[in-house]
Every structure is written in C-alpha cells, then in structure tokens.
C-alpha cells in the first residue's frame, strides 16, 4: 500500500536519509526502530510532505506523494499521530475529534459512527467530551491525538513515537488500544524508540540507523536478533 523507493532527504544541503526503501502492505503493522536522531521522524515527515528537499519516490496506493501538499496527502487515507500532539487546545475534546474527519470526504459521512468507536476504545474521551483539549493530562492528550487520527478512517495510520513522555503504565495501556485498532484492519506505520512495546503489535520491522535501513525482519525474528537484543532491548 505504501512504498518508498530510493528516498534521499536533505536538511539545508546536509543529507539525513540515504537511499531508503521500505513498504507497508495492506492490513500490516510495520515498525521503524532506531535511536534518537536516526531519521525516524524525518522519514515520516518526508512521507507526509513536511520537508522540502526530498528525492525519490513515495507511492501510496500507486500515487506519488512527493509532489503533493501535506493536507492533500492526509486526504488520501493517511493519518498521522504526531509526536508533539498538535492538538487544538482551546477546542473541546469533541471538537478536536470532529476536526479529524471534517476535511476527509470519505470519513465525514460516518463521523458519528467513528466517534462512537473511538469513545468505545477510549472511554475517558467520552467522559471528557466537553472539556477543552488544553486542560487534559498528557496521557489523555495522547489518547485524543490517536482518536483524532482514527477519525479520518485512515487506511494507514502513522504514529510518531506515541510513547514519548508517557509513564510506563500508560504506555502499556496505549499499546493495548493500538492492538485493538489494528484488528479493525488499519495498516499501521509505527516509529518507536520503545522497541519492547512496539514489537508487541507489529508484524514486521525496520531498523534505522544514521539515515539508513540496517535491518528488516519480521517481528519474531527481530525479537531474536542479537543486535536488537543488545542495542534496544538491553538483554
């Protein structure tokens, strides 16, 4: 469904991603692991058209995304759960959620159903429906971000470090929810530092280091991989 070929990304003439190729198949959950600064966020930004100097090919359902503007990419069936939340602090939880589908024509018709579904997964959001988003706790804001991403009824949900800044118990809760979501046949692209949790929900994973993919294996194989065990799982 998503296919990245030959991707090179530059920041001010400095290359940060080199000859990268990867793909996400339908109904598949793919993880991208790597240390801080390895290029995970940049890769996601490149896919979504949030950086300017991109060379190569990003195909989503056969369409090249590199020439498209971000908002337009979002309307193709991709949703992003950004690392720093990017909520609308002076709007209520419900307004935030509704904005998730308001500008995606396929999702707009079924706003109410999707909303019910999200309230079902995250009951806390239902409880705080009328509260301003800016007043939620960090964990609740993260749930809201995921919820907003789902409102678009995406075929591909991209999550950028969803565990950052959450306390461990909330991280576990969040990944359980993601598992539920995955069962709804949504493809997932997950960039994570928390490999242990990430491996629980993905089918296949890439390891990104210094802007290059150094490893591609299925989740089970990754768990067995020596390099992964040493560098990421601390075994």
């Amino acid at each position, binding site marked *: 469904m998503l296919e990245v070929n030959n991707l090179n990304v530059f920041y001010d003439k400095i290359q940060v991603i080199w000859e990268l190729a990867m793909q996400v198949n339908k109904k598949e959950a793919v993880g991208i692991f790597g240390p801080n600064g390895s290029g995970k966020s940049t890769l996601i930004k490149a896919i979504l058209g949030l950086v300017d100097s991109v060379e190569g090919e990003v195909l989503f359902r056969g369409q090249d995304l590199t020439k498209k503007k971000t908002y337009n990419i979002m309307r193709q069936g991709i949703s992003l759960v950004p690392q720093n939340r990017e909520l609308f*602090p002076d*709007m209520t939880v419900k307004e935030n959620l509704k904005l*998730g589908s308001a500008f995606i024509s396929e999702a707009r018709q079924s706003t109410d159903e999707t909303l019910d579904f999200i309230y079902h997964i995250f009951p806390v959001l239902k409880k705080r429906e009328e509260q301003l988003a800016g007043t939620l706790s960090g964990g609740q804001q993260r749930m809201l971000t995921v919820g907003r991403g789902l409102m678009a009824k995406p075929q591909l949900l991209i999550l950028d470090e969803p565990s950052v800044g959450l306390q461990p118990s909330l991280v576990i809760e969040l990944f359980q929810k993601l598992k539920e979501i995955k069962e709804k046949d949504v493809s997932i692209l997950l960039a994570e530092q928390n490999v242990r949790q990430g491996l629980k929900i993905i089918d296949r994973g890439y390891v990104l280091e210094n802007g290059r993919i150094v490893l591609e294996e299925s989740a089970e194989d990754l768990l067995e991989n020596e390099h992964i065990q040493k560098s990421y799982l601390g075994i």
Partner: protein
Amino acid sequence: MKINQKKTSWLFAILFFIVIIVGIWDASALIYGLQRGSLYALIALPLAMVLGIMDILNLAHGELLTVGLYASYVLFINFSIDPLISTLPVFIFLVILGGIIYFLTIKKVLGEGHLPQLLLTFGISIMLIELIKIYWTTRPRNVYRAYASSSITIGNFRIGSYEFLYVFLAFAVFLLLKLFLKKTRLGQAVYAVGQNPRGAEIVGINVDLVYLFIFCLSSGILGLTAGVMLPRVSIFPLTGNPFSLISFALVAMAGMGSINGILLAGITLGIAEAVIQAIPGYGGWSDLVFFGVLIAVIMAKNIQEA
C-alpha cells in the same frame, strides 16, 4: 484565535459600570461613544483576525480602509452608485486586492516573525499612500448624502441616527463571523488554523487556502466598512492611517485573537473618549484617557512575573 474567551468578563464589568454612570450623567455621550466605539471595533476586527489567525502584523491596515473609501468614492462620482449600495462591489474589490497583496507579499513573510512583516507592511502602506497622492492629491473629498445627517428626536432628546448603522454593522459582522466560525466547515478550519496551523494541516486542512481566505475576508470587511463610513467622513490619502493605531490598541486591549474582546474594547474606549470630550474644557485630554485606559487594561491583563 479564541472565541470562548472567559477573561473578557471583567471587561464587561468595567463597561457596565461606565455605562451606568455615564448614562445618568450624559446619555448622548453614551450613545456617541457606542457609535464611535462600534466603528473602532469594526475596523479593528479584520486586524485582529489577521493577527490572531495568521500571526501577521499588518501596518497597512488603515491604508486598505483608505483604498476602500476611494473605491466607494469613485463608484459614487463616476457611476452615481450610493455608498451604501457600493459596499458590495467595494467588498469584492477589496477581497481581490487583498488576494493580490497576499500572493505578492504577505505569503512570503508568513511565519517569519513580526518584524519583517512590520517593515513589509510599512513599505506597502507608503506605496499605497503615495499612489493615492499622485492620483488624487492630498485634497480631501466627500460624498454628500442627506441621510448622513439624519437624526431622531425623543422628547427633548435629539440624537444622530446614521451612526447607529455602525453599531448595527459591527454587531452583525461579529455575530455572522461567530456563526461562521462555529457552524461552517471553513469556519472550523479557520478556527483550527488559528489555534495550531501544524495540527490543522495534519487533519487535512489546506492552511494556505485558509490564510488566503482570511486575508481576503479581512480586506473585504474593511471595504464593507468603507462604504458605510463614506457619507460621514472626509477622505484623503491619510484617512485610514490613524485607524491602524486605534486597531492595534484594541487588539492589544482585547487580548490577541479574542473576538468578543474587540467589540467590548472598542465600545469601552469609544465611550471613555466621548465622555471626556463632553466635559467642558477637558476635551484635549481625551487622547490621554484613551491611551491611559489602554495601558491600564493591558497592564492588568498581561503582567508577567518577572
């Protein structure tokens, strides 16, 4: 952009207090203040939108109003179109002009911080003023309409009625704008962009388009206002210039991006000004009161722990 601003409530309290006192002392000052203040608010609103949503500091704001006034004047002189009717074509004209200015200049300084915007729009304002001077000279022009000096008499009390149009238009524009922001999808997009442009892009909003729309709409509102003002004012190249300052004052007083606050701040300052002007011998201090109130409100609202 905040619609649900709660902090304005004490501004309400001040206003209410002033209204009671002044109403007892001199009712006409109250009405003049209301009329004048509504006009201030009407002119400040577009500035607040551009600043609150696009984070653009537009020093050429007053000059766009001036252009609107001249456009309306030209329609009256050449085609005998009544200024009140010309509000519509002038609205459209200014929407287009706003779009042109946006594409040629503003678009390039989005997100560059206030300083380059300040200087850029200062340059634009010089250019507009000089263009008008070259074509129409500095000589003032007026459009005479008998209805502009109409009045109503209630008992012994005679009060000008034309400027109630300012009050009406101010409230109408404010209400429509709020409805638009709350009820329409584009309005929600505007609202979202005002709070978080990045987040807006992520939910599939075309942020560039929203910016263009806001800049055009703001210019358009100035055009609308221009048509209503024209029968009451003189126009000359610097007509609109002082309104930039007044608008900035109101925006700062209301708190960035607060729509309710603008209307309240405008009316509060309008009444404060009218009251001083009505005290024999102290009219010269009305500016002091205007800026005094402004400074006091800003200080009270924004004092930081330092």
